[in-house]
């Protein structure tokens, strides 16, 4: 186990480095520079700026100083917002995205698992059809459409909730709903499918034969085994949701991290692109790592040290 963790740890670092390197060269390959604006400033100022941000140096030395910045996790100042460092942007945006993400994940997991389990237990019944119709709608309806609808109905027409901005718990309700519906639907469908499979297994029959209560059978034996596919997608889902979603944050004016991903690329704000990418990929890789460990907990048959990080 320890060996495995150490091995995985180095693999994680390797993965992040590869992603960072690819990003660096791709980023410099797109035309345009962070200092471009519709107004052309005079060449002296342009040169001064390039010198200040070290953009006048050859790519190789830029790459090295950038690798340094990854190791020290200090990405320097944003070029578009010269008074802010990339670290302070992430430090400010991430907790907010994380907060929204955690609430979303909790809502999605709890309601998804409950819905999926109910559907499986009442297979081909009314609840099943209702739950799965709901799930199909949830999966097919993009969250930005849902977000706009929610604002229109609950803020515009009914006035129950504030339309946007990030201030009180009331402000969280609509974005959480908009963001949670998709993952919830995915989780519900996965739970239902694997529950159906698990429920036909011999050990469930055995448990029934032993006279265990249905509640105990479901929670202790069925659900636990049915959770494998859900855990599999949780890693990427968590990383994606916790680091902020551009569209939802834009629609609800949530000052999270999502916008930096997209805006930094539009602005060619190199330090911010690199900072957010490294941060996101490190986070994602770490989540996948956690998922692998959770596998072992849920299913002792998966021997991590033998399969070397490819447990499926």
């Amino acid at each position, binding site marked *: 186990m320890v060996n495995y963790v150490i091995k995985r740890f180095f693999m994680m670092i390797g993965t992040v480095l590869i992603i960072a390197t690819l990003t660096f060269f791709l980023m410099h390959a797109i035309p345009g520079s962070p200092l471009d604006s519709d107004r052309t400033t005079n060449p*002296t100022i342009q040169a001064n700026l390039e010198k200040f941000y070290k953009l006048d140096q050859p790519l190789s030395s830029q790459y090295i100083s950038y690798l340094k910045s990854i190791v020290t996790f200090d990405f320097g100042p944003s070029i578009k917002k010269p008074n802010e460092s990339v670290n302070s942007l992430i430090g400010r945006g991430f907790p907010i995205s994380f907060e929204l993400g955690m609430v979303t994940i909790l809502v999605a997991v709890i309601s998804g698992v409950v819905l999926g389990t109910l559907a499986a237990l009442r297979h081909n019944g009314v609840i099943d059809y209702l739950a799965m119709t709901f799930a199909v709608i949830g999966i097919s309806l993009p969250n930005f459409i849902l977000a706009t609808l929610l604002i229109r109905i609950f803020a515009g027409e009914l006035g129950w909730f504030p339309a946007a901005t990030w201030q009180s718990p009331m402000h969280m309700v609509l974005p959480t709903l908009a963001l949670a519906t998709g993952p919830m639907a995915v989780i519900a469908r996965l739970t239902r499918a694997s529950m159906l499979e698990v429920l036909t297994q011999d050990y469930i029959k055995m448990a029934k034969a032993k006279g265990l209560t249905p509640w105990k059978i479901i929670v202790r034996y069925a659900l636990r085994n049915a959770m494998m596919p859900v855990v599999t997608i949780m890693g990427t889902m968590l990383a994606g949701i916790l680091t902020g979603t551009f569209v939802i944050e834009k629609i609800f*004016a949530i000052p999270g991290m999502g916008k930096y991903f997209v805006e930094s690329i539009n602005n060619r704000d190199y330090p911010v692109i690199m900072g957010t990418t490294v941060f996101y990929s490190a986070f994602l890789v770490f989540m996948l790592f956690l998922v692998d460990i959770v596998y072992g907990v849920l299913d002792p048959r998966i021997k991590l040290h033998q399969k070397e990080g490819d447990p499926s």
Partner: protein
Amino acid sequence: MKKKWLSLVFLSLLMLLLAACTANKDAGKENTTSDDTKKGEKVLYLNNAVEPNSFDPSVAFDAVSWAPLNNLMEGLVRLNDKNVPEPATAEKIDVSEDGLTYTFTLRDNAKWSNGDKVTAGDFVYGWRHMLDPKTASPAAFLAYVIDGAENYNTGKGKPEDIAIKAKDDRTFIVTLNAPTEAFLNIISNPSFFPINEKVAVENPKWFAEADSFVGNGPFNLKTWQHDSKMVFEKNDQYWDKDTVKLDKIEWAMVNDTNTEYQMYQNDELDIATVPSELAQDLKDNPELKNEDQAGIAFYRFNVDKKPFTNEKIRKAFALAVDQQNIVDYVTKQGQKAAHGFVSYGLTNAKGEDFREVAGDLIIFNKSEAKKLLVEGLKEEGWTKLPAVTLTYSTSPDNQKIAVALQSQFKENLGVNIKLKNVESGVFMTEQKELKHQLSRSSFLFDYADPVNAIESFVTDSSMNRTNWSNKEFDQLIADSKKETDNDKRWKLLQDAEKILIDEAPVIPLYFYNQLTLEKPSVSGIVRHPVGYLELKWADKK
């Protein structure tokens, strides 16, 4: 082993949950403290779309920074409700007979929000800061009319050689290198605001947070939650505080026009922009305000790329565009069709509007367009028109217009053109490198003078981007800069504009406007064609 892992995972989940919850409570608390609006207070709720890029007056160079900053600080002059610069921090302005030397006498009661007096030295400090090559201010070029400014800014001169002087604490003297009609208008730009020298020397980042911000305008920066919210309150130190009627201004930062509109409907905002999808439905809404904004959307030809090497073919394309049709059925935002290059809203001392005096220089004319196309092809000896690609930067609005142009060229000239969209950063780089044949462009005025727009097209200007060059045009612009008589100067500029439109390196489309929804309870907000949101006189019932 198994149990241990399980409990570890649960523990970490619990921690995450707790972290989320605590953050949540904090968020709630913050809200209650900043929302403690007293009864009867006049609070205006506005939206600034995004976080201001900077409140350093020298660095701010966009509407999202200027709109708030213009109400937190004040320069020597402020534009009044008729867009004319009036003495502000200065109480008296003397101009020498040759129009070169401006002597500003500052108000005795002009104070910073921390109680310090605003001195002439603060202006010298602020302007030198803007021109310092290290500041890399995008606005610096605006100051090049001041003697010695360009030299210092480009690293060739010393700050002491800029012709700005503090004769004493209340007298500020500026010498220009050429008489400039628009000078007072130019210095209404936030880049020319003073900077409190004492504060800035002590803390070079004084403008980055609400706690350290020191302004001299009608309002004070009370709180600034970055990327999320700003609160302004009336500045008690302001020399003209009796005019200021609002107690507070709360700025949200919502960058989605549909959300903004819903917030307006939900009374969370007093003013909102109009989402383009709703422009048609809201056309007759009494809360809608439509005001000029000096700027133009247009297309550039590259006169070095076939077929636009031929003037007649360019003209044919330009005449085949029905501007009115685009404004009425494509953009639908109440803009004015552009039949010239200089937009409405630029007036002289007599109150005449440049555009109205210059008249319509190009109007959609299908038969003339067709005729010119045939003549052009003949001149070049082409049997078939070389392929044309129109390029625009990716956005739904740009696309709509590009598609409309494509169909107008097809219908009015019988020409099939290709459309190509590219990401905006790439687009700008390619346009500067003159890689396009025909490409979308826009121009927003930096100061209220026609020359600002027209001089973009002098030979070798970095704003030219068409390869078009005309000696007569260049000469007219050069003459206009030396001309002290404003009537003659306007005549020169009008002649230049005529050449520009006649040789058609550009196709004008429409002039920009400011379309806003404003609650009936709000009054006194001034939006200038060239300028910055003005809340000094704003009131709310």
